[in-house]
């Protein structure tokens, strides 16, 4: 087992004449929570698509060793399945029915939606749906979790609540995580390491590490300091 399950080595990606990445390299350690922030359109989602194998780089090499699950921005639950059935998708590989039933209950308990197990996604609130998405992606034996702006469609308070929940879930079910977001607070509150991307063609213009444990309060001095550093990087606050 290597300890860098996700690696991008000297990758370039272009769509026609649009150059998204030029010679980008990035490594993520096992169990690390990496956040990628950057201006919109800089290629954050493209980065996730490289990791998930959905997209091949024009040049360079992508290494991804482990089972990957992605949480998309919104509405990727199957609307014809109940919350429980959606989560059970994440447990498809378990051979024992009793074991998957037990783990399903465990996941429902983890996201506090036991009473809503038989509800369909359209009967749930946005925050509940996103919790089911997280549970589905975390269920079963997976290694790598890719989060594509998972909370961007939620209201501010729900977003704060779900950050805490994600931190708590990862404590129980540790994963290697890549979070792509334009929400700088979210990155500062959740990630071990934050990579700031520049405009296209994107390069890493800053790396920050945040070493205090999760869950972190939004107003913790280190979080505030990190937010400030990133905003300064974008020229939105004075250095």
């Amino acid at each position: 087992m290597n300890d860098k399950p996700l690696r991008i080595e000297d990758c370039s990606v272009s769509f026609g004449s649009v150059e998204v990445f030029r010679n980008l390299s990035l490594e993520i350690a096992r169990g690390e929570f990496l956040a990628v922030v950057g201006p919109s359109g800089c290629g954050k989602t493209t980065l996730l698509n490289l990791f998930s194998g959905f997209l091949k780089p024009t040049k360079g090499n992508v290494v991804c060793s482990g089972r990957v699950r992605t949480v998309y921005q919104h509405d990727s639950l199957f609307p014809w399945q109940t919350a429980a059935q959606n989560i059970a998708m994440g447990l498809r590989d378990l051979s024992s029915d009793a074991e998957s039933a037990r783990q399903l209950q465990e996941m429902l308990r983890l996201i506090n939606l036991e009473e809503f197990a038989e509800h369909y996604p359209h009967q749930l609130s946005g925050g509940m749906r996103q919790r089911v998405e997280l549970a589905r992606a975390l269920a079963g034996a997976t290694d790598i979790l890719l989060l594509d702006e998972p909370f961007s469609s939620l209201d501010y308070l729900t977003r704060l609540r779900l950050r805490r929940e994600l931190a708590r879930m990862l404590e129980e079910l540790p994963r290697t995580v890549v979070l792509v977001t334009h929400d700088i607070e979210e990155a500062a509150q959740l990630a071990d390491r934050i990579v700031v991307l520049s405009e296209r063609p994107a390069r890493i213009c800053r790396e920050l590490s945040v070493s205090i444990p999760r869950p972190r309060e939004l107003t913790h001095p280190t979080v505030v300091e990190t937010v400030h550093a990133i905003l300064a990087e974008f020229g939105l606050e004075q250095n």
Partner: protein
Amino acid sequence: MTEKRLSSGSVLLPVIVLVAAVAIWSALWLLQVFPPSVFPSPWAVAKGLGEELRTGRLPADLVASLFRVTTGFMLAVLLGIPVGLWLGNHVRSRLAFLPAINFFRSLSPLAWIPFAILWFGIGDLPAIFLIFMACFFPVVVATLSAVASIPSVYFRVAGDYRFSGLELLTKVTLPAIAPEVITSLRVTAGLAWLVVVAAEMIAGRDGLGFAIWDARNGLRMDLLVAGMIVIGVIGMVIDRVLMRLTKIRSVRWGYER
């Protein structure tokens, strides 16, 4: 208003309308607004209906019509959904065939009546053929447009959770298109019921369409109206039956959001 009061209203209110309609009908007959020979009274129609039921002619015609509609409709659905799935998944085939499908969809199925008789004679076959022609193309179009509009993220998710070939069809594509396809089935079943009457009037020796045509030829306006009532009621029943499909829990999402 509470749900209970609304649901009792859903029976009571239409009954009031029905009673009022029969009252107006009776008044028109009593005032002799139209000559009695071409405008039967409600009680004559009720008597005719009873007579047709007793002799067994009406049930026999009903069975004949329902058999044709069911066969033609099922054939159209069983062939139309796979064709729609295939066209929905293959852009080039869709480009090739869609204009032809839209051509036939816009062509009134009744235009096929001469050929239906020349090719299939009189009886079940021409009616089934016409019903098939009426239903097949709308089912194809509804299915392919439903397939083409499935959000691509569902297939990304299916890939993440390692759904394979047949599972993609049964666990993603079919449930994703079910609400739209069910809606189109309701519409096309109604169409089939319209077409069978016309088909039987011209290319039949039995069936409800033939029955009202025969009544008109025998100047039995009471039987004609009795036939019309049965046709309308059965059409409503067919729609109610297919509406049950929209109550299935795993398709409700398509109607509620």
